[in-house]
């Protein structure tokens, strides 16, 4: 299709080729009882440790897809496996997933520390160990000094960091993020994008990241799943073949623009198709 997307299955990086699939969707679809097709059948395999972005306009089913992976919504048909197991059997394994919402969604009545430690408390982790892990999580997102602050005393970006720390404290294997930085200003967003990549690399996470920003998708991902709306469906699967760590310089490189242009083309074609059909 394009010069950039030359990567095919036989030239995958050796480092990840032997890793098992973390997430597998087999003809997974979502049709609501009233007949609305939120998502046409999707086949998708996400490997352990991969950073995948779901990119598309609103109504393309990207959030629905993410929620189905989290088990917050169930597919109307098809199968969905996490580490080869159905989602409702996940708790029987030692694998865990975390979900980071579009809003920080913190408990406004609790301090930052309490917001994060609650995740551990619900798992039965208490005392010294819980304290240490909360400190660790706070350090990961750079909020050690704000442990005792209330959410309302923090900026939007800092609240989002707390939300991410809350997601990381349980040491998840899979991190699902639903447009987490959508409401933040660009400077904060760039900063958190870089922080996220660092956390992903340091912690060996598998990340599925939902966004409607083409540039964010290119900057973050190893692979972008491009989606279109009405009905929600996957229209392309683009590898972003760029090494990590990626610095802000990457945003200024011609390659970055080329990837962005390619993604843009897919989205544009889909929306023209939609208008003419």
């Amino acid at each position, binding site marked *: 299709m394009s010069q950039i997307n030359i990567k095919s299955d036989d030239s995958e990086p050796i480092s990840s080729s032997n890793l098992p699939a973390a997430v597998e969707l087999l003809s997974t679809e979502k049709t609501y009882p009233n007949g609305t097709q939120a998502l046409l059948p999707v086949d998708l395999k996400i490997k352990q440790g991969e950073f995948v972005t779901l990119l598309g306009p609103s109504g393309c089913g990207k959030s629905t897809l993410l929620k189905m992976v*989290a*088990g*917050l919504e169930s597919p109307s048909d098809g199968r969905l496996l996490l580490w080869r197991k159905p989602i409702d059997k996940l*708790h029987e394994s030692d694998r865990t*997933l*975390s*979900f980071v*919402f*579009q*809003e920080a*969604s913190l*408990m*406004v*009545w*609790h301090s930052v520390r309490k917001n994060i430690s*609650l*995740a551990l408390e*619900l*798992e039965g982790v208490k005392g010294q160990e819980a304290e240490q892990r909360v400190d660790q999580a706070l350090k990961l997102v750079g909020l050690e000094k704000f442990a005792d602050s*209330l959410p*309302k005393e923090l900026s939007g970006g800092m609240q989002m960091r707390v939300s991410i720390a809350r997601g990381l404290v*349980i040491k998840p294997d899979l991190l699902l993020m639903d447009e987490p930085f959508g409401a933040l200003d660009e400077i904060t967003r760039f900063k958190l994008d870089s922080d996220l990549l660092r956390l992903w690399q340091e912690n060996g996470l598998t990340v599925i990241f939902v966004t409607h920003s083409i540039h964010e998708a290119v900057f973050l991902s190893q692979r972008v799943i491009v989606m279109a709306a009405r009905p929600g469906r996957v229209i392309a699967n683009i590898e972003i073949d760029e090494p990590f760590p990626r610095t802000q310089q990457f945003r200024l490189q011609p390659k970055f623009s080329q990837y962005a242009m390619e993604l843009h083309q897919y989205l544009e074609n889909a929306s023209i198709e939609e208008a003419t059909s």
Partner: protein
Amino acid sequence: MNAKTEKQPLLANPRYKKIIIPSLIAMLIIFTWQFIVVTADIPEYIFPSPFVTAKTLYADWGLLGPALLYTLKVTLLSFLLAIVVGVSVAFVFVQNRAIETALFPYAVLLQVTPIVAIAPLIIIWIQNTTLALVVCSTLVAIFPIISNTTLGLRSVSPNLLAYFKLRRASRLQILFRLRVPSAMPYFFAALQIASGLSLVGAVVAEFVAGTGGANTGLAYQILQSGYQLNIPRMFAALTLISLTGVVLFAAMSMISKLVIGHWHESEV
């Protein structure tokens, strides 16, 4: 530099503003009232002046003091009962939509039926006058507690609820770690309304009961003053009822501020 700059910080502080401005209005009203009564030479058996009212309050304290205590007792007992029963009902409603759907209309029925219409029946059924008054007053005060607390327990951020479910929190954990804290602002708003309503209930019910004897509250004093055309005492009793209501409201605001003020915006 001058007196004006000294005064500014005091009035600029919203806390003082909330006390000073209403106090000034109160003083203005009292002076106007006194002025009109004195200049127009209105007899005190029609419209007593604030001064006469205050004098009567002092002189009749032997009657009014115990009456106030009795009314307070009924008010506070019914307020507590309304909280305990109202919150329990709200908890049941939130656990099960079917129960709420089935029972909520009856909570509304309770609310829309005037207490003066049910009070005679309750007073016949319940021998103990004090208990009868408490029950009547509870019926008046309970509705805002049920409806507000139910609303509050349901007004949980959908994301937080999803988060708790993802973390496999139990129903009980969701109730106490998420629903109860989320409901706090709603609950305290209900307390402010219900505290006043329980006073209204206590006074209205006593009007209907109209019993004499040792257990008599301010309503009985007002009734008696009416029969005896002792208007200054009526005014004194009225003043006590109003002040009680204001104090109850202020106390609820203070408790609310103490409990949730550090995180809830409107209490800051």
